[in-house]
């Protein structure tokens, strides 16, 4: 029995030593993109892609037009494709005062939707079966900020 206690003590020390070097934020993603819906592309029409960004509770990401110049804006960019990008519409930002900033900040939190509108040319290449892009965001909570992240975006398309 005494040996069991010793073994437990040794294991406990090992666990505690391990926790001292634990990096709980490593690889942490504060935001993700919900799987986008299939988009139908019709020649000569407009196509709209709605992307839902899920931001973890307790975290925020900066608005597309942040309140301070030093902040990294949330930005969705699309790779070159046969469609013509007309607009990327971001949701209205929330104005929130954090203890680390003298001024209220413009942020997104919870689930938000970013909508992209494309004009479709009169002839659509048959090989077009997806639109790809990148979402850049930089997240914080009330005590820490996380290094800027890029998420690749892939939206499957079907031609009418």
């Amino acid at each position: 029995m005494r040996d069991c206690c010793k073994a437990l003590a040794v294991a406990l020390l090992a666990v505690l030593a391990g926790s001292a070097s634990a990096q709980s934020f490593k690889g942490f993603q504060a935001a993700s993109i919900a799987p986008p819906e299939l988009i139908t592309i019709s020649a000569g029409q407009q196509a709209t892609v709605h992307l839902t960004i899920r931001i973890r509770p307790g975290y925020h990401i900066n608005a597309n037009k942040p309140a301070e110049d030093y902040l990294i804006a949330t930005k969705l960019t699309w790779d070159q494709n046969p469609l013509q990008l007309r607009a990327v519409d971001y949701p209205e930002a929330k104005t929130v005062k954090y203890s680390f900033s003298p001024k209220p900040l413009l942020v997104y939190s919870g689930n938000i939707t970013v909508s992209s509108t494309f004009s479709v040319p009169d002839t659509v290449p048959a090989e077009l079966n997806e639109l790809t892009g990148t979402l850049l965001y930089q997240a914080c909570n009330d005590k820490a900020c996380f290094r800027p992240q890029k998420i690749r975006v892939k939206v499957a398309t079907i031609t009418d």
Partner: protein
Amino acid sequence: MNVTTRFRAASAFFVASLLFASCGNLPPEASSETVQAAGEQRQPAPDFSLKDVHSADVQLSEFKGKVVLLNFWATWCGPCKIEMPWFVEFQREYKDRGFSVIAVSMDEEGWDIVRPFTEELKLNFPVVVGDDKLADEYGGVSALPTTFIIDKEGRIAATHQGLVSKGDYEDEIERLL
């Protein structure tokens, strides 16, 4: 306390400790984290040599014999900006007692964006621009600010992820000086 009772108590403590320790590896719902290491458990701080704003070498191992506050930060990090004036004050107050701040910027744009910031805040301690390799050596440093308090033997005495109070830093520095 008989042997069986002792064993049960030890088991309960072990399970509780496992739960406590595993919290450190969960996604961080807590907004900041501090890890203290007692003397013999302290790990050596990985050495590095990087250029400061004047292109002079800043080598961590040359600070051995001093208490070092090694701060990873970025210009886009709001909480980091709160701490910088504290660090200026610490450098002024404790420098003559064998203390130095070293700030490692994680801005990908490098000196173009870091230099104006250091000038604006009149930083009175070495500032270098870090990279992923250095961040990896220090456990990833994905959350900023991340601050390591390094003892005179060059070992990590405390790690802070996220903003902590000025008083916490002062207590740790005083204890190690």
